[in-house]
């Protein structure tokens, strides 16, 4: 394996991990909210979260580019404080988060829905505050689904292509991820390197799916 393949693999795993960790608190909160609360605008939140699943990733990437670009509403604010997002590793993280979040939220939400409300009720009669009920009952009972959702989101992040190339480009050594590199190397005729990366991608994908399926199966058996 060449130095470039190593660098690309390590970079991809690292940004996907950062994206997944940043996604977790938001995703778990949204999942719980959608599973347990009725509030105005709920349908809108549900739709917005799932939108990246059904839209062309390139289109999602273009939206992100318009928002985060130097003339965009958020990008211009950040640029004033000297923070550049687009075409940096931060853009890769954001693209991965947006594309992975729907998978985390959907899986974790199912996990929360499978937790019997009666456990939460009993905990409350025992004097537990809503936050204590969440952290000691709902969260641990939905834990496997949350981990499964995080793994799915992580896998999706590793495979992310369309949104990433729009908002972060394919700068070797800086923003080029596994999926993007497979494309650019094949296009450049560097088949050998592309095949090495392909093998790595397949191996990561296999491991993630097997692990996720095992977790989900156990979850159904436990509750």
């Amino acid at each position, binding site marked *: 394996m060449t130095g470039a393949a190593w660098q690309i693999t390590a970079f991809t795993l690292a940004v996907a991990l950062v994206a997944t960790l940043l996604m977790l608190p938001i995703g778990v909160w949204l999942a719980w909210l959608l599973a347990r609360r009725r509030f105005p605008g709920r349908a809108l939140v549900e739709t917005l979260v799932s939108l990246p699943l059904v839209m062309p990733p390139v289109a999602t990437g273009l939206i992100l580019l318009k928002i985060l670009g130097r003339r965009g509403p958020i990008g211009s604010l950040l640029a004033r404080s000297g923070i550049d997002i687009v075409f940096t590793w931060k853009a890769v993280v954001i693209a991965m988060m947006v594309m992975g979040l729907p998978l985390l939220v959907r899986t974790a939400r199912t996990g929360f829905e499978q937790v019997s409300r009666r*456990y939460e009720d009993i905990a409350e009669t*025992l*004097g*537990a*505050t809503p936050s204590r009920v969440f952290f000691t009952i709902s969260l*641990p009972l939905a834990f496997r689904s949350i981990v499964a959702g995080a793994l799915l989101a992580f896998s999706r992040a590793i495979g992310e292509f369309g949104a990433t190339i729009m908002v972060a480009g394919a700068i070797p050594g800086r923003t080029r991820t596994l999926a993007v590199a497979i494309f650019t190397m094949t296009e450049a005729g560097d088949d050998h390197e592309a095949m090495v990366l392909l093998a790595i991608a397949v191996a990561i994908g296999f491991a993630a799916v097997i692990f996720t399926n095992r977790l989900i199966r156990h979850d159904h058996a*436990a509750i």
Partner: protein
Amino acid sequence: MITLQFELVQDGFTLRIDERVDGRVVAIVGPSGSGKTTVLEAIAGLRTPRAGRIAIGDRTLFSSADGIDLPARDRRVGYVPQDALLFPHMSVRRNILYGFHGAVGAGGAAPGNRPPVETVLAMLEIEALGDRPVTALSGGERQRVAVARAIMSGPLLLLLDEPLAAVDVPLRRRIVPSLERVRDELQVPMIYVTHDRGEAAAIADWTLALDAGRVVASGEIDSQ
């Protein structure tokens, strides 16, 4: 004295009750579907009546007239549901201590009726269960662990929903004395739901008979 004066509607079924009951153990008897569990859930704060008042002594838990509806966590009512509902991801010990920690944090509620853990475990004969996972318990053990968990939250009233329903006859003979010890040693009033009048007579000193959401009889049990 427990005041139960309320009307509650759920899924087309109306429960109407207007009673003051007085006893160390009040048995609620009646056929299935008569509303027994609904009464307990209303007292525990898990179902909201349409109107009325629920009080333990002069402590009002719910009053539509005064706009009072204490959240379940502030009611200090220990509820033991029929299926025990032990938290499946915790050991026996952590289940039992769950309410103990909850009660300490709950608005400064005094731990008045809370005896030492070891006393409660001995009273219910579950000292040996300690660190076992709750999935390894028998039906009778689960019920007693659930009773211990409710007691450890320091309740002012205990609600037991058919605690012997899942237990065979020889084991009942062993559990009933445990419940009698809880009644006699802790001095916590109890409401005990059962469809078995014999069981009611054995442990209770007041019965409230329900049928189809209405009270058909209420009064002290003759101690003869």
